[in-house]
Structure formats: structure tokens, C-alpha cells
């Protein structure tokens, strides 16, 4: 297999030693079919064991390895060396998050927001297990399926100009997740979720830049979810003003 020498310029920050982040360069002999993560693993195994970053699956499904690659948020296990422009590859932790160490960012805010949108089945009428499954047609499934595909890599928060400005903004992944449950024919919790999603920090903070959808490695298209939620919450607002209820029963 042919090799290609690559220079990786990786942001380093070790809070116990470094006052501020800095870049360290490494020369890596890359195989032609390597992804960026392979090159970083090479650094860890052969050049510098002190480099820290998150990864596990190496197949773009666990969501651990998001980072800025040449300025854009991406999964390092799905970014191929062959697709990068020549010259040093700049690798930094996901933007808009505090750095914990090197390429590892603090995920607390993201995790808290996921939880806040109540991402679980809410039903007013329970169905005992003995009665078996809920029926759901392929068409009903299709309505929300796309929004189930989020791997929580947080690349969208790094790309989002609004999250950069307003840290309270619930943000693309969490809103898309709320929408996923709202759109599920089995769920009855949309009005409960609207307390969060239609609040000041919810969908109305979105300026519809669409950057989240551009960078999403799973094509979840959170921007469309937010757009649909804006429309739904506007309709609900009018319905309520007309005394016709609103929200899903």
C-alpha cells in the first residue's frame, strides 16, 4: 500500500502544565486508506503517548471522535486523509466547548440539554405489555426516523453560530431529539416538551443558518426539525388564542 507523509498540527492543552493551548506538530506516515483518527492513533502509539482524545468504534456510530479538522467539525474516524488538501492538517477540539484537555472537551452542557427536552416516550394512556406492540405504519415511522439517527457527536453545536453567541440555546441535537419524539405516532408528550423547546432558549433562538445540517455526519438535518417545530409552536399559539387547545393530546 502506498504511504503519504502528513504533518498533523494538533492543539495541545494540559491544564496542569499549560497556561494556554498551543499547537504541536507531528510527522505521520499515513496509509492511503487511513482516516484522520488512524493518524492520531499513530501519534499516540509511536510518537507521543501523552496526547488525549476520545474514540471507540472507528465506524462513525459512537459519536466520540468529533473534532475540528482544518477548521470544520467532523468525525475523525470518517474523515479520510485522501480527501484532505495537501499541507499540514490542523486538528483542534470541538469549537464552542470548554477544553478539558488536548482534544477532549467538556460535554456537561450538551448532556444537560439532551436531558432537558425529555427525550423519552411520554404517554397519557399506558398500554400494558401483554397487549403487545403499538402498531406503526412504515409511513408513520418515516416521519421521525431521520431524527432518530443522531449519534450525539456534538459537531452541530460546534458549527452553530447561535450557540456560540448564546450558550443557553438548547441547540440543534437536543431540539432535533425533542422533535423525534414529538413526531412519533406513539408519543403524547409534545405539549410537555414545548415548555422547553418553545421557551426563550428553544427554537426561537435559532437563526436558521443551517450550519448544523451542513456538518451533520449522519444527515439528521436538525435545521429542518427546528423549522418544523417553529411552525408547530406558532400554530399552537394561535390555536390557544382561538380557544381551540393546541399541542398534541
Amino acid at each position, binding site marked *: 500500500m502506498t504511504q503519504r507523509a502528513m504533518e498533523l498540527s494538533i492543539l495541545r492543552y494540559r491544564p496542569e502544565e499549560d497556561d494556554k493551548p498551543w499547537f504541536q506538530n507531528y510527522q505521520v506516515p499515513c496509509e492511503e486508506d487511513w482516516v484522520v483518527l488512524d493518524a492520531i492513533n499513530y501519534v499516540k502509539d509511536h510518537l507521543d503517548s501523552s496526547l488525549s482524545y476520545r474514540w471507540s468504534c472507528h465506524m462513525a456510530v459512537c459519536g466520540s471522535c468529533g473534532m475540528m479538522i482544518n477548521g470544520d467539525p467532523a468525525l475523525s474516524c470518517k474523515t479520510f486523509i485522501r480527501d484532505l488538501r495537501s499541507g499540514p492538517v490542523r486538528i483542534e477540539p470541538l469549537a464552542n466547548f470548554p477544553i478539558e484537555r488536548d482534544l477532549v472537551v467538556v460535554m456537561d452542557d450538551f448532556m444537560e440539554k439532551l436531558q432537558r427536552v425529555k427525550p423519552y416516550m411520554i404517554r397519557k394512556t399506558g398500554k400494558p*405489555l401483554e397487549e403487545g406492540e403499538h402498531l406503526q405504519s412504515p409511513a408513520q415511522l418515516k416521519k421521525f426516523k431521520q431524527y432518530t439517527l443522531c449519534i450525539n457527536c456534538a459537531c452541530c453545536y460546534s458549527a452553530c453560530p447561535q450557540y456560540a453567541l448564546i450558550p443557553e440555546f438548547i441547540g440543534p441535537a437536543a431540539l432535533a431529539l425533542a422533535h423525534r419524539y414529538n413526531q412519533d405516532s406513539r408519543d403524547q408528550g409534545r405539549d410537555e416538551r414545548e415548555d422547553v423547546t418553545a421557551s426563550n432558549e428553544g427554537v426561537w433562538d435559532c437563526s436558521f443558518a443551517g450550519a448544523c445540517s451542513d456538518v451533520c455526519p449522519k444527515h439528521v438535518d436538525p435545521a429542518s426539525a427546528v423549522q418544523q417545530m417553529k411552525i408547530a409552536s406558532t400554530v399552537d399559539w394561535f390555536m390557544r388564542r382561538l380557544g381551540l387547545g393546541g399541542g398534541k393530546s
Partner: protein
Amino acid sequence: MEIIKTDVAIIGAGGAGLRAAIAVAESAPDLNIALISKVYPMRSHTVAAEGGAAGVIKQGDTLEDHFNDTVAGGDWLCDQDAVDLFIRQAPVELTQLEHWGCPWSREKSGHVAVRPFGGMKNERTWFAADKSGFHILHTLFQTSLKYPSIKRYDEFYCTDLMVADGRCQGVSAIEMRTGLMQLFQTRSVIIAAGGAGWMFPFTTNGAIKTADGMAMAYRAGVPLKDMEFVQYHPTGLPGTGILLTEGCRGEGGILVNKDGYRYLQDYDLGPPDPWPRNKAMELGPRDRLSQAFWHEQKKGRTVASRWGDVVHLDLRHLGEKKINEKLPLVRDLAASYVGTDPVHELVPVRPVVHYMMGGIHTDIDAATPLPGLYAAGECACVSINGANRLGSNSLTELLVFGKRAGEHAAEHARSAAQPAESEIRREGEAARKRVTDLFLREEGGENITTLRKEMNETMESGAGIYRSEDSMRETCDKITELRERYSRVHLEDKSNVFNTNMLYTMEVGSMLEAAHAVAFSALNRKESRGSHQRLDYTARDDDKFLKHSLAYFQGEGEPRMDYLDVVITRSQPGQRVYGGKAK
């Protein structure tokens, strides 16, 4: 050292750990739960499972068929009481997931759809496209957020169990963000820490599958059971080891050698037609398919590729529409990682280490022999998989036995005596010392990357698809040597915050201990059964080895081996029959 008091501590937040946590929260809402994981729950490797989860639901299928397929698939090394419980609970648990929102693929009628899977007589594998594990994990994680009694400790690396008064009463863990050692004082512990594929050089497993849970239990005196049974999945992508699900073959995909010939017909799995046909050809069990590859390679009939020898998976006849609908991830993975589009091209594949049938010995309540300690999921061996797991039984196993572990651990927590605080503290200090010793070791010792590579190589050569006395003996000696050298490993990075050099080092330590158990269990099983195939003892020997192997930790020394009878209720050992003769 900070002490965190809780009632039930769960090590691992994958499918099994999350299911266990929910079971505790539902059955005993007043108990406090500490759900501890070295990665955020949704990073757990359950996320990578593609094909689906087995459970009888359709007309024409029967529990008895699921029982028989599982027991024969496991070459009669399954405990039949455990299998019985498993197949009965399977549909209940999968329906429960449906109620929690799992987006199972559907039939036109709105009922959940099922697909055929290897070694299964009837269609009974529930699936969510080819991202079943991903959806199961996210559904469980999201559902778990509902329960206030589940307190998560994400990115905490557990190191040891605290045993006092003959009971398991705690866990030590390093908070990765600070490097601080914390002590969980608890009444019950559940280990749900997943598999150990990273012992091998080429695996479908994520980098976090490093045998930590198995090693913790093993060091605490709990035996590891049937560790010699390591499953090779027949269709991994060469180079990366990324899995292409058995669902590919369930949907009608075929395997061909360099002559375009469906070689499985030469290994008692034919005739090739009609196709697709359950329990025949490409839908035979994994051990037999991986072994067939080995023979084809010996005969020079595999395809030489730039990643080494492969065979071809042909999906082209399924057509673009079906591939996009049923196998979208497979298409994406093949295109990305080996540059082939399965709609138009043959996909190179080869066998790859996939799953550990063996693990922490438990009974059917998920209880280990150590009071207060429970285990579930891939790290455990409740013996439903025997000598060879059938695809799609594992995801269901996480649910059935995860739940059971949770309920029994909760019950135990209620009745457990007062914790022996000072003893737990003493044990905690010993655990901490194990870590600080690593930091204190001098420069110039052994290098952890070198040790890991040597372990990988020797595991492949001695514990691979086919094994022999000489190669296994060599591997046993090599692992003994590596364990000795490990005691001289030194850390290059001595910082506290998110020190992955230290974590990798601890993980290699876990793997070496588990690898020791694998190698010695294999060496001592002088027969061929399921995934354990020997070139020197080619037949199954029920007289001597219709038994579970139990490996006991002996410090630096070789493990002590013991044996335990298999539980047989109604299926006497018989021939495993696939292909034309299969019933």
C-alpha cells in the same frame, strides 16, 4: 479518598448496564443507583450492533424452535434452564423496548418486522434497519433519563471491586476529568462492562472493549467461565475489521471465493439452492462459516487483496432499493472504508474476532458466586451461548439478563447487612496503591504499545479459528511472560487530567489477565466444539467435556482450572445439522 454511598453500583452503561439500571429504578424506586461508565453511555459498544435482536413473535415460529436453535447452535454447551428463561422473556423485553420508543422496522400492517439470521430456523430477528444496536442503546439511554434515582458517573474508570466480609460491597473508580480515585460504597454491584475483543489484533469491537469487567471479577476470586470460546464473525471488512452484519446474508447476500463459487456448499452447508433458505449455506452458524474461510485459504481459493486474503460478499442481486432500505449502513461502510459500492460491486470480507461467549460465571439470576456481585451482558457468562452464539441472541440477552441482574441486585441490596466501612476503606487504599504504583515506576521499563501488540499477535496465533497444542502452549507461555513484563511497565504521562496513557495501560493489564484465562481454558479443552476447533482433537468429546471450564485467578501464576456440568433439561447432545439436512 472520597466515599460515595449508594445502594446499587452498576459498572458499565451499555445495553446491559442501562437495562439493569432501569430495572432497579422500576422495581425499587427508593434505592440509589450509581451508573458508572468509562465512556458516555451512548458511546458504549452496543451502539455498533447492526443486525438485530431475536425473539419469537410471528405466527409459525415457536419458543421451542428458538430453544433448539440456540442449544444446537451452542453445540450443547448452553445451560438449558437459562436458555428456557431467555427465549420466554425475549419477546417481552423486545416489546418493552417498542413501548419505550425503539424505532423497529415495520411491516406494511404496522407490526414489527423480523428478518432471518444465521442458525435460526425461522425469521425472528427484530431489527431497526441495520442500526439495531444503535437504536436499542439510544432508546435505553434516553429512557433512563426519566428516572431520578439513576445517578450517572460518566467517564469514571472502575479499577477494582471491594470485597469485605465475603461480600462485594464497593467499587473503586478513577474520575477521568480529575484523576482522583473515588470509592463507591454499596450493597450490590452489577458488572456490565462488555467484551474483550481488543485482546486480538483484528476485531469488530470498539477500542473500549478491553475486558476490564471480567478482570475485576476474576481478581476478586470469581471464576471466568468458558473463556476459550471466541467468536469470529465471517464478514468483517479487511483492514479495519468493521462488521458487515449477518443481515446482509439474511436479506439474501452470498459468499463466493476467487472463482465466483459459493464455497460453503463444500462444508456441509449446501446445497446452494433454493436460496435464501434458513440454516443453510450463508445462513449457517458463524463458527462453521469462519472455519470454511480458513479451509478455503489453505486451499488457495481465497482472493488476494491489498489487505491480505479475502472472500467476496455479493449483494448486487438485492438491488439498490432493498439495499438502501434494509442495509443503508452496510452500503455506507463498504463505500467509505473499502471503496466498493455493494449495489454494483463485490465486497471483500474476512473473518474477524467479534464476541466472547465466555465471561464472568453467573447463575440464571445473574448472580456470581460472590454474594452481592451480579453480572450481565457480554462480560458475563450465564451460558445461553454455549460454544457458539447465534447472531442476534446477544442484544436480547442484554435486555433479559440486564433486567434480571437489576432486580436481583435490588433485592439483595435491601437485605444486605450493614457495610463494613473500615474494611472497604482499606480495600480502597489497596486499589489506589495499584494505580499510584504505576505512576511511581521508574523510566526505562516496558512500553505499553509493544506489550499490547505482542499480546494481539500471540492471541491470534494461539487462540484463533483453529488451534493446536503447540500454538496454544506457546500462547500460554507468552501471556505469562507478558504479564511478568507488565509489572515493569512505566507511564510516560504522569498527569492527572484525562490521562489516556494511564487508562490504556490499565486496560492492557485487564486484557492480559483475561487473555491468560482464554489461553489456559483453550489448552485444557482437549476436544473440538463450536468455536473451539483443534487440529489435534478434531471431534467433540461429550464424555469428558460436556462441561463448562472455570478459570480461577492465581495471582502471577497460571490460572487454576475447574469444570462444571452443563445443565441439560430436555435436549440431549446431538449432531448439529445445517444445509439440506437441517430440520
